[in-house]
Structures are given as structure tokens and as C-alpha cells.
């Protein structure tokens, strides 16, 4: 899976299916939604580069495992039907198929383990245990159930891919939510400053010092005039 396919494939899915992300989009304006979408796209792209790129660029190992998985599945299914016609030989072909599939799993599992270790995924051990349990169940069921081999093929490497994709999406989600929180906090900080009208706007012009001065002067002038008259 390349970056573009990953980003485009999960962008809309995360907006509509992830409730935390959906909540952010629902409470935003149209303009804000455009910014949020761009940021989620960047977060997915960045997350892919950090967590998934190296894993999905599997190199020759992934081609070998795909080849073994398909030929193994073919032999497994053919062996199931030939068993009725050829007896033990059919069983042998089925056995070859199972060995091939197990080899493919081994290659994929080693690739996954290397990748998980590099990224320090702490859940790797529990993930490995779960995957190993699934493998045993699949291989065992392939002997008894007619379509189990097909199901095994379809699941193939995807059981490892899913773990990597889940981690990549979680990382992208965390980054996106951090960004959304930062934006929200910035907006709140701007809104927090209330509009304050300066006190000068509330001055009563009739009571200002300037308004009282002429009255004093007039009174003074009156007194001066009175004194002059009296004199």
C-alpha cells in the first residue's frame, strides 16, 4: 500500500467513522472543516512515513511470501480434492501447500517483528501471541473445513498489515486531535479578552474640572468689579 492510497483510503473513513474526529468536524464551520481536513490529511501522510512506509516497502521478501502463499493455497485446495481420488498422494500435496503457507507466514512474521521492534511497539508480544494463535487455528481448520484454505489465503499477510495500519491511524488521530485542541485553545485565548470601554467615555461634562473653572472665574471677576465699585 503506497502513501496516496493509504491517505485517500482512510481520510473519509476517519472523518465519518471515528467519533472523536467526527465530533470535531461536526462542531466546525465550513471554513474550519477545510483546514481540519487538510490537517488530517497531513497527519495521515506523516504517520504513514513514520510508521508504515518501511513496512509496506517490504522488498523481495513480500514477493516471495506472496508467491508461496498463492502456490501454497493452490496446493492446499487441490490436495483436499485429490485426497478422495489419490488418497495419500493428495494428502501429501495438501501438506506441501501447508508448508508453503507456513513459510510465507514465517517471512511475513519476521518482517513484522523487525518492523515492530524498530518502532518500539510495546504491544508487539501480545500481538505476536494473538497472530500465532490465529495461525495455528487456521492451519488446523484447513485440514477439516473445505473453504478454510481460501479464508486463510484471503487473510494472508493482512493480519500483520492490520496491526501496522491500526498503529499508523492511531498516531495520525493523536496528532490531529492535538492540532484541533491547540486551535481551540488559541481561539479561546483570543475570545477571552473582553471588550472594555475606557472610563473617559463616561465622564459627565457638567461636572468636569474644566466645566467648573469658568464659574469660578466669573465669580472672581464679579468680586473684583464689586471691589472696584466700592473703592
Amino acid at each position, binding site marked *: 500500500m503506497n502513501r496516496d492510497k493509504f491517505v485517500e483510503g482512510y481520510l473519509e473513513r476517519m472523518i465519518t467513522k471515528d467519533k472523536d474526529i467526527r465530533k470535531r468536524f461536526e462542531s466546525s464551520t465550513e471554513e474550519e472543516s477545510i483546514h481540519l481536513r487538510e490537517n488530517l490529511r497531513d497527519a495521515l501522510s506523516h504517520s504513514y512515513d513514520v510508521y508504515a512506509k518501511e513496512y509496506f516497502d517490504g522488498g523481495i521478501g513480500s514477493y516471495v511470501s506472496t508467491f508461496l502463499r498463492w502456490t501454497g493455497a493452490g496446493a492446499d485446495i487441490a490436495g483436499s480434492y485429490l485426497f478422495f481420488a489419490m488418497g495419500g498422494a493428495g494428502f501429501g500435496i495438501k501438506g506441501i501447500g501447508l508448508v508453503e503457507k507456513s513459510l510465507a507466514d514465517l517471512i511475513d512474521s519476521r518482517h513484522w517483528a523487525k518492523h515492530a521492534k524498530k518502532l518500539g511497539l510495546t504491544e508487539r508480544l501480545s500481538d505476536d501471541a494473538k497472530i500465532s494463535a490465529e495461525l495455528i487455528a487456521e492451519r488446523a481448520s484447513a485440514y477439516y473445513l473445505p473453504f478454510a484454505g481460501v479464508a486463510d489465503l484471503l487473510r494472508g499477510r493482512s493480519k500483520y498489515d492490520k496491526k501496522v495500519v491500526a498503529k499508523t491511524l492511531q498516531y495520525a488521530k493523536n496528532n490531529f486531535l492535538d492540532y484541533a485542541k491547540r486551535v481551540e485553545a488559541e481561539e479561546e485565548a483570543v*475570545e*477571552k*479578552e*473582553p*471588550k*472594555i*470601554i*475606557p*472610563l473617559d467615555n463616561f465622564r459627565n461634562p457638567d461636572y468636569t474640572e474644566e466645566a467648573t473653572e469658568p464659574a469660578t472665574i466669573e465669580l472672581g471677576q464679579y468680586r473684583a468689579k464689586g471691589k472696584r465699585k466700592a473703592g
Partner: protein
Amino acid sequence: MKIKDCILIEAFKCKEDESIIEVAKKLRKITLRHIFVVDNKEFPTGIISVVDMNNRVIAEGKNPKDLKAKDIMSRPIEVYDINETVEEAYKKMAEKKRVMGAVVKDSKMIGIVTIHQLLKGMEKKNE
């Protein structure tokens, strides 16, 4: 809607230990009829009106030079946090039959909110 979304009036205030003469000069300069009194941490603790000046100083025959703001201020007063909703603030103001109140942010007085602004805020919310 919260008080921070309302239009506030600049805080008109004096310190508790400020002399009455200084307070009177401030009232004369700004020409408002009330001034809020704040403590050392800028938290509003009382209010002085020009009527208080008359009734508690002049009419009592006291010497204004001997008095400080805290000696004649009316207290306690209602204080409104900037994050309080306009409904809560209006309810408190109406119960106390006031028309304005001191607004604090982080326990420091930053302005004055009038009942008129609170009503406008409630009206805006209901639109």
C-alpha cells in the same frame, strides 16, 4: 453566553488604604458616582459612592484626612467572574437590586459589568 462576551467598563477603583481625599479627587476627575475598592491583590472588597462621602464623612463631622477608603466603603459586594454566564450574573444582580458589578479575571478586578449589558447578552443568546 458569558460575561467575557459582554462589553465592560474600565475598572474604576482605588486601594483599601488610599486616603479619602485621594478617592474624592478620583471621583471628581472621572465624574462617576461610584468607585470600587480593591485589596492588595486587586480583588474587589467594597464600593464607595459620593453619597457615602456625604453621609459617612461630612455629615458625621469626621476629618477626611484621617480616613481611608476601607473606613467608609460599603461591603460586602457581589463580584462576578469573567467566565460566569450572563444568566447567573443577572440573577445575582437582580436579587441584590444592583445595576452594575465588579468583574474579576483570575481574582483580579478587570472591569465593570452593567445590568444593561447582561440583559443584552441574554437577548442575543435567545435570538
